[in-house]
């Protein structure tokens, strides 16, 4: 047990003459953790990161260029925003490239369980990268965010594939326009 009464009495009387120099401002726990995450980032060869400001490790972009599956040849950019409550809360991830995908809507919202309901503090940025990469290899029509795309994937795979291709080359699928995103 700490004996505050005996320990602190003199010390606090001298207060006001705070320790000379003042020490350096500490990095936040979120900052320490993201530094660790990024230093150990082990990206698959289809992925790369971009840091607009290398001093700001809390905001960055992930670029995925799938080399197989429906989305082969495309280039998809995701923005990551890591908040002060990381890793208690997951980073906010948005897809900045318009994509015709069952689990990504036209506003860039991504339906990936570990980005919301299944997030746990032991997960890392790497887990999210692999989760996102997996979405491109195995779009999941069971959990649709773009319902039209999901229904199509289930009912007519060929048509879905054509539409994905059209969207990636740049063009309309239904009434939605997609910018070209081929590499």
């Amino acid at each position, binding site marked *: 047990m700490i004996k505050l009464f005996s320990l602190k009495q003199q010390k606090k009387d001298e207060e006001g003459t705070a320790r000379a120099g003042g020490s350096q401002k500490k990095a936040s726990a979120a900052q*320490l953790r993201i530094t660790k995450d990024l230093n150990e980032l082990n990206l698959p060869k289809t992925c790369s990161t971009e840091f607009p400001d290398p001093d700001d490790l809390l905001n960055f972009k992930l670029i995925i260029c799938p080399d197989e599956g429906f989305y082969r040849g495309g280039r998809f950019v995701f923005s990551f925003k890591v908040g002060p409550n990381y890793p208690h809360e997951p980073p906010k991830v948005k897809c900045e490239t318009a994509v015709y995908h069952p689990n990504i809507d036209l506003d860039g919202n991504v339906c990936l369980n570990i980005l919301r309901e299944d997030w746990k503090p032991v997960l890392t940025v790497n887990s999210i990268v692999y989760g996102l990469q997996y979405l491109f290899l195995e779009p999941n029509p069971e959990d649709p965010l773009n319902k039209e795309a999901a229904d199509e994937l289930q009912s007519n795979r060929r048509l879905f594939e054509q539409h994905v291709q059209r969207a990636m080359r740049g063009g309309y699928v239904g009434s939605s326009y997609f910018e070209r995103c081929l590499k």
Partner: protein
Amino acid sequence: MTSGETQTVNDYQQRKWQHIRKLLERSGPFCHPDFEPSPEILDFVMSCCKVLIVGAGGLGCELLKDLALMGFKTIHVIDMDTIELSNLNRQFLFRKTDIGLSKAKCAVEFVNKRIPGCKAVAHHCTIQDMDEGFYRQFHIVVCGLDSIVARRWLNGMLMSLLQYNDDRSLDQSSVIPLVDGGTEGFKGNARLILPGMSACIECTLDLYPPQKTFPLCTIANTPRLPEHCVEYVKVIQWAKENPWGASTPLDGDDPQHVAWVLEKAQERAIKHGITNVTYRLTQGVLKNIIPAVASTNAAIAAACATEVFKLATSCCTNINNYMVLNMSEGVYSYTFNAERRPDCVACSNTTRVLELESDATLQTIYDKLCEDQAFLMKSPGITTVINGRNKTLYMSSVKSIEERTRDNLKKKITELGLYNGAEILVADITTPNTITIKLKFDENIDVDMTR
């Protein structure tokens, strides 16, 4: 004033504290084994001990009242909030005429007026507005917060005030105990954190329940609950329509925002055959509101205030160290020893020292980290904090950062803004956490370098 009257006033003063005196001036079977009864202890509480109360809400009002009535006189209260109508049922230091005013100021004014001799001081600002010097002046910090971010920040601040001796043992006089209370409806907890000695907020972060979230695809396509409709408007529709312009984030405290969300959520509910989307529910989902219960606050604040008193007087053993209280069905309470995490990012981060010449380059640091027997790292990522801003010095594992920080390796560390005594943060696969390393220059001549 006649001598008779003076006598009465003194009598009153004597009687006012007699219960406290019984605790502090006599020994007893429940006393701490090292406790030495003495009248000086009450003097310390009254004239010397400085306590900080963080938050002047439900818990804060109780804490301030409790501590002031226990004899603490120098109490600082910090809270950024202003008083709202809905606070008045439990935040009993406030009146209807106080609505819109600072919680900290009103609470302090009330208590100073009501309890003669009490010298409470208010700070109407955020905890982040105050610096190390402010926090260092206190003997004890007690908090009644509703936010995990704020708790973590405060925890980090108190950890950063710790001083370690050369043999890496803790200098106990740098420890400022943190008593933390929290309530949620009929449940609550009170805990004691001795920074650097017992489990801290960060050690037990997984004890906090995760925020309630719904799968995005459910709220987007197959909503079943009224909450799904509100969540949809909050997560998707707000960003899409930006009713107050793109730069205005949704504010759960703004009645106009809540009304807008309610309207849209109701439209959505009708479309999916869902009922019961009400204003209250909308507000609840937006702000994650759990009704506050005055008696839970009173019980938890009492437990916290008792711990503060025990810390200040050493009269009894403190709780060890985490008490939970559940009054939702009957009353249940349990105290357990929350254990420290040996790899905790906040409290196990005892700084290590790296000695080098003052004209060394960043490459020297990098090489030392890889080759020095004390470190033997594989590919350290090095960052620092300069004037409160994070700076990435070198990180080899992220290609885009490596390219832009490579040139730093050739630079002298003093050119990079580092100085004798500066701290660098190093992450590496060989350590469970990012570690802090203090630079120590060999030559003692140019020590007081420019910052």
